């Protein structure tokens, strides 16, 4: 584990890959069924599938919800990295317990509660993956604003996607400076590997010194430009909010999507009472 980690942080971990995955996740799938939904409907949908499974113990219902959110996740064409993170997340929370119990021949009474817990975690995670990854960030920001989230949060979401590629490139270049000019300890032995890992962690820390100064320069231009472009004026203006949200329109398809989800949930409920 230690070895893998030490090799992963700087050497194999490609910033380009990460950047492209995040951007792909945000904008690469804006022509899917999920991305076309009204963000308000999706957020309400998320409110249901992100909360209700916690309160339910019924296996059939959970399984039903899980299948539904799995379908929506597939429909949203989420980037591979996010799915991987989802897998790791579920596994590290409860999945590994389930696996261990099963391997050591635990009986149904031991497995069942774990399975239910795992299903809950997986369903809720996938629901969030569907909504937050499947939706275009700007539409998501507008949706959140409609529900009364502070304007600054919705600005932050859009801005984060704008700044991320630039920040990553800068960070990558700073790290490259360290990589080309630095002299990391040899890492053939175990002790060397530990030292190497410590070195890398230290470098990442150090890298934030130039990054902070460089980003400070950028932030100044950005905030000055925001000032000129009326950001603060808009933040306090009701009329602007209305214009922004005017872009949100419920379509018949949104209704169909909601009704289909409802139908599915009702069907699993029925099935649950019959079994």
């Amino acid at each position, binding site marked *: 584990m230690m070895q893998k980690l030490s090799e992963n942080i700087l050497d194999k971990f490609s910033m380009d890959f990460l950047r492209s995955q995040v951007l792909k996740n945000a904008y690469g799938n804006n022509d899917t069924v999920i991305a076309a939904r009204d963000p308000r409907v999706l957020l309400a949908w998320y409110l249901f599938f992100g909360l209700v499974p916690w309160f339910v113990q019924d296996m059939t219902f959970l399984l039903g919800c899980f299948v539904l959110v799995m379908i929506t996740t597939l429909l949203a064409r989420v980037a591979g990295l996010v799915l991987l993170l989802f897998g790791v997340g579920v596994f590290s929370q409860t999945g590994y317990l389930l696996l261990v119990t099963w391997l050591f021949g635990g009986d149904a009474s031991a497995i069942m509660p774990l399975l239910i817990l795992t299903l809950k975690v997986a369903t809720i995670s996938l629901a969030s993956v569907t909504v937050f990854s499947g939706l275009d960030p700007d539409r998501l920001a507008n949706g959140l604003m409609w529900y009364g989230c502070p304007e600054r949060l919705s600005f932050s979401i859009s801005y984060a996607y704008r700044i991320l590629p*630039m920040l990553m490139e800068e960070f990558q270049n700073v790290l490259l*400076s*360290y990589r080309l000019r*630095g*002299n990391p300890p040899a890492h053939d032995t175990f002790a060397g590997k530990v030292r190497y890992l410590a070195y890398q962690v230290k470098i990442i820390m*150090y890298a934030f010194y*130039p990054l902070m100064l460089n980003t400070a320069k950028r932030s100044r231009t950005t905030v000055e430009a925001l*000032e*000129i472009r009326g950001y603060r004026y808009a933040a306090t203006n009701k009329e602007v909010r209305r214009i922004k949200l005017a872009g949100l329109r419920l379509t018949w398809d949104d209704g169909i999507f909601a009704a289909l989800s409802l139908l599915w949930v009702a069907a699993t409920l029925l099935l649950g009472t019959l079994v």
Partner: protein
Amino acid sequence: MGIIEIRDLCYTYPGAAQPTLNHVNLTVEQGDFLAIVGNNGCGKSTLCKVLNGLIPHFITGQFSGEVTVSGQNTLESDVGTLARKVGYVYQDFENQIVRPTVLDDASYACLNYGMTDYLDQGRRALAQCGLQGREEEYVWQLSGGQTHLLALAGAVALGPDILILDEPIAQLDPGHADRIYGVLRELNETYGKTILVIEHHTEYIADFCKHVLLLKDGQVSWMLPARQALARVEELQSCNIFPPQVTQAAHALRERGLLPAGTELPTTVEEGKAAFAPLARKTALPHPAAMPRDHGPEAAALQGVTVSYRSVKGEPRVVFDKLDLSLYKGEKIALIGSNGAGKSTLMKLLVGLLRPKEGTVALNGTPLRDTKPEQLSRLISLVYQNPEEMFIKDSIEGDIAYAMQVRGVENWPEKTQALLERFRLTELAQRDGRLLSGGQMRRASLAIGVALNPGILLLDEPTANLDIATRREILRTLNEMKEITETVLIATHDMQLVCEWAQRIIVLCGGKVVADGTRDEIFGNTELAARVGIRPPEIFAMGRALDEKALCYTVPEFLSQFEGADA
């Protein structure tokens, strides 16, 4: 009354001892296309920020005097109101763009000021700036020049009467630069905008601007029509501004009495032709001659290299397809080509930052993938386009020493001192690199680059974002460095640098090497230059206008033809 009226303006930044603007008086007429020139730190940017109200409303400090823009006193109105009268495009324009898609960003300001037709306004601005058809694209898909146009569109969208641009073409190749100025001219002539540019590319001033304003130590020296202004060669040069090469040549000839004393100096190649053609050319300029090429052993080689970038949507974008290229020991190579031709990618490949999908990259015959990155630094070194990313310590001394120090190089403190000396940085040794001026920053980054004495030195745009005087200084440094560095590769748009420094020129276009040879071979090939958009220095074009086969790269070379053996 002019569209801009400044009366007795003084401004001091908070904490500064000296006023940055000192009793400035200025009137700019509606519809002018004004270039603001002056030394670094003479208050050009500050003056522009006064016009859009950022000073004093956003940036505090001591402010006195009266500034009226479109009839509005800037002290009495707020930044929001002024933004609709004055559009501003920063030098680091990419930080000005805050939205992810093109149309979104162009209409952002209109939306914020509550215009219901904000999308139409945005579309119209994009059309005016020549970006129609790109509305739905993402910002990171745009090239540098297009990003600049987008920043401009964002400013134009609010319908201001005045547009201010801070060094609009500093990072662009000539093709993109022409496009920016073409758009500006259109905005000026067709839409009646008053345009102010901070600019040190005097050839562009000669071609596009109507008036020139010279600022000196926070004061207005004069404001004159562009032709007259550029003819004041000595005065401009004393402020480190270099008039077009044609003007410089004519000025020198007038000094020597070859042109009559009262002649108006030409500022463009066309005018130059009229002025110089009647003169007797005593010595013929050299004509292209085939030169045999002999070279040392291979220092770096790319074989069948294919590289592609992942794209957010659809197929990956192929940058290189089976590229073959060899660099030989001792060569001084310039890598040229338009933005996006693959220059940076090539450099990234050589330092192992990018791995090719196919093919091999080898240094001194050893494939790169068998070399550890930290060992690479003795073989090859890369100086980034943005020097700020090279500074990882809190003083440039620390930065220069770092690589030697961690490797336990013998006598590293002495070597550091020697480098500081060599690059004239001793006085600045304890300063943080980021807080230096542009030229000092470059010199420091070059010193860092050569600290480990690498066999190959790669420089990415070493003269970008610098004014001409600083560029000369860097060129001098590069020439001095020739003796301590073996193989050097420079990626650049700066053709003066290419002409005066490079021994071999590689032209990249669309990921292919389309030409590779000496400057005579590259610039002498008119057809090639037109095809890949290379623009030789103005004086070269001037020489060619007089003699189709002439090859001259500097003003003295050009002048030599008018002097006989007796001169």
